[in-house]
């Protein structure tokens, strides 16, 4: 029995084994092997990564600030990056193979290229917002136009109302033209089909990459040379719609393609005509995708400069009639301001560019929000509605609805479904 109680004895004698349960024995002289972690790098790899970074930073500082006449942050970053990769390569080569060295160097190259790209993107946004701020924080920048304001007037005078209004008018017309045409083309490519649709699809795809200036030239030759009409906001809107059309058509095409075929078949099997199927089943199913298509096209159209430059001119006045007279727009205002060489005009151009940039980012974020995959979580709108329905006015409405429902029960049945 003593053998059983002694945990160090790992060889119990035969009579003891007749007793049912016994504790597992451990051997204190054998140290357990640490389990290999699959999730992370070994410690020495982390040490090498951070050690190389710190050493490279120090080396870069010594080289650029003390040894060579390469002052400035740019050189520091470049030399740091180069020192970093050299140290990484040497450090890996000390305790690992060539394969590991090339893996390290490749990871460094790929990551630093990506970092470069995103830093460049960040620099565009930050720089434009920073330079635009002096103009942006005056309220008159949004409420005045540039009529009667000379280029040397301070930023407290004049603004970009005319440019914003011009952009809005042009984009409104362009959307009104290109939305039905674009979605119609997408419906044609998906619902009608045939060999002709294939040609149209190829051409639309080629059109997506059309240089923007050619859209302007096209409207110029048709509208101004062939029809003899003057340069106007309408011509600019037409040029923008030529640019927006393929974007809407192509994005809607992709969206309509993922509408389940069973929905169409169900509708057709119930006896609906093809048009009724498209109008009541296909398009409503793809609604958010179509909205995304429109928003992406607007985001593209709002920044189109070259076509507007050719088909309309810049003017300092608020001008809302698209039919006659040149009409300014945001990109044109930016372009003219940047070319003027006047310090204050350049600041105004940066202010307008900041507005344009914010607009594009906002449109883009909306498009991403609409196009996100639907999740099990109820949408923000539905959650808001639910929380609103708990407050008195909501309950009042519910009460009223119930009262109406009592009076006309047949309608309620339909509503409930």
């Amino acid at each position: 029995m003593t053998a059983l109680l002694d945990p160090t004895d790992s060889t119990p004698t035969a009579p003891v084994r007749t007793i049912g349960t016994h504790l597992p024995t451990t051997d204190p002289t054998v140290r357990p092997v640490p389990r290999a972690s699959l999730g992370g790098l070994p410690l020495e790899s982390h040490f090498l990564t951070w050690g190389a970074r710190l050493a490279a930073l120090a080396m870069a500082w010594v080289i650029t600030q003390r040894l060579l006449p390469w002052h400035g942050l740019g050189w520091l970053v470049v030399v740091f990056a180069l020192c970093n990769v050299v140290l990484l390569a040497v450090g890996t080569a000390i305790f690992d193979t060539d394969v590991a060295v090339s893996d390290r160097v490749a990871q460094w190259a790929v990551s630093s290229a990506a970092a470069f790209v995103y830093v460049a993107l960040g620099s565009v946004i930050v720089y434009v917002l920073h330079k635009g701020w002096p103009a942006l924080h005056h309220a008159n920048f949004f409420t005045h136009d540039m009529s009667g304001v000379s280029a040397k007037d301070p930023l407290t005078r004049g603004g970009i109302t005319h440019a914003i209004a011009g952009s809005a008018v042009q984009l409104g017309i362009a959307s009104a033209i290109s939305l039905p045409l674009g979605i119609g083309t997408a419906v044609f490519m998906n619902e009608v089909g045939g060999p002709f649709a294939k040609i149209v699809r190829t051409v639309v795809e080629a059109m997506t990459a059309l240089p923007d200036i050619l859209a302007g030239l096209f409207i110029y030759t048709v509208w101004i040379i062939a029809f003899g009409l003057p340069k106007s906001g309408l011509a600019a809107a037409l040029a923008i719609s030529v640019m927006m059309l393929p974007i809407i058509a192509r994005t809607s095409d992709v969206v309509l393609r993922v509408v389940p075929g069973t929905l169409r078949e169900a509708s057709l099997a119930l006896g609906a005509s093809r048009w009724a199927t498209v109008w009541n089943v296909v398009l409503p199913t793809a609604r958010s995708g179509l909205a995304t298509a429109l928003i992406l096209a607007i985001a593209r159209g709002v920044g189109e400069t070259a076509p507007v430059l050719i088909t309309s001119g810049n003017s300092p006045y608020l001008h809302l009639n698209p039919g006659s007279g040149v009409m300014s727009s945001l990109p044109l205002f930016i372009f003219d301001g940047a070319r003027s060489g006047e310090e204050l005009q350049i600041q105004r151009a940066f202010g307008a560019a900041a507005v344009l940039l914010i607009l594009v980012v906002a449109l883009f974020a909306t498009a991403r929000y609409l196009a996100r995959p639907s999740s099990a979580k109820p949408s923000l709108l539905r959650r808001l509605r639910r929380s609103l329905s708990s407050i008195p006015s909501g309950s009042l409405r519910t009460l009223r609805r119930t009262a109406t429902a009592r009076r006309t029960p047949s309608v309620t049945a339909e509503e409930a479904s």
Partner: protein
Amino acid sequence: MTTLPLSDPASGAQPPATPRRISRRPTGGDAVFAHAFRVIGASVLAVTGGIGVFLAYQSVPTLRHYGLSFFTEHQWDIGHDVLGIAAVLSGTVLIALVALAIAFPLAVATAIYITEYAPSGIRSTLVAATDLMAAIPSVVYGLWGVFLIQPHAAYFSLFVQRTFQPLLVHGTARTIVILLLVVGVVAGLGMRFGMRIKGRLLWIPFGIAAAAALALLPLLTVVGADPNAAVPDMTRYTASAFIAGLVVAMMVMPMACSVIRQVFSQTPEGEKEGALALGATKWGMVRTVVLPFGQGGVIGGTMLALGRALGETMAVVMIVSPDFVIKGRIFEIGSQSVASLIASQFAEAQGIQVSALLTAGFVLFVLTLIVNTLAAIVVSRSRSGADTA
């Protein structure tokens, strides 16, 4: 209990049922629907076809007036009525190539980073940021390029010229190097296609040609100014094709990147895991599985970017100072592209000059159409791109 369907005794002996003829031709309202939408599709086709047709039609008077020398003349001299697009065409290609040389490695590396290296938490954010980069208007990039990048890029140009000046080949040596380049290329092509030689032997002529090209490369960095002067003339280093190409690269990079990323992300997981299971490092897996799989997408995406770079207007207008000379000196002030020529000259152009500009536009149209169509074919023919388009 099952029963067989009984024939209706009242109808008597019926002819055996024949299948109804099935027609896919729409009738009634469906026909109206199909035809109406066919008209819409045709109108879109007409708009695109119209661009080519109208521009081609407008270039008839140009060719009648200037003849074929319009394509070989490099000056754009309105005063003497000497107009030609040789210089602008070469400038367009040069700026596009500079842009591509910068954008291509960045696009491929960013695509690899997003698909393979980025932590999965930030992946969708990075994709959104890249798409946003493509959506930023070109005029905003132009502002950024002119006011933020240009001063730094000018100093970089000065540095490059100073560094590469000792490597320049002059006089007879230059002639010999150019001869070597030509001989190497001709001999290589002759061996490959004339004598049908494959393999290692081909390295000799092409190696000579590559070495000669490398020796000629510093010629690109010449600027008509002394880089070692006490106060270098910085105005000679601004408004160059290099700076325009740098900004255009920012615009075309996201486009190429999104095509390449989509193709890379379709690499079969099994093949990737197979490579890793055989002991490949991550880079080994990327090099042997992802890159070969996405080859078509890389080429196609790059060509799409090239098409876009050829037609980029505003950044070039805002940065370069017009110069109608055929030159390869990318760091020197002055260049011009077709699109920027049109944008900058159109306001003052009259009569035949408008036609000339429209002809230049037509040439640009044909050029971009060829490049984009080739890109689309390459992407759709490749193994990976078959179902991305």
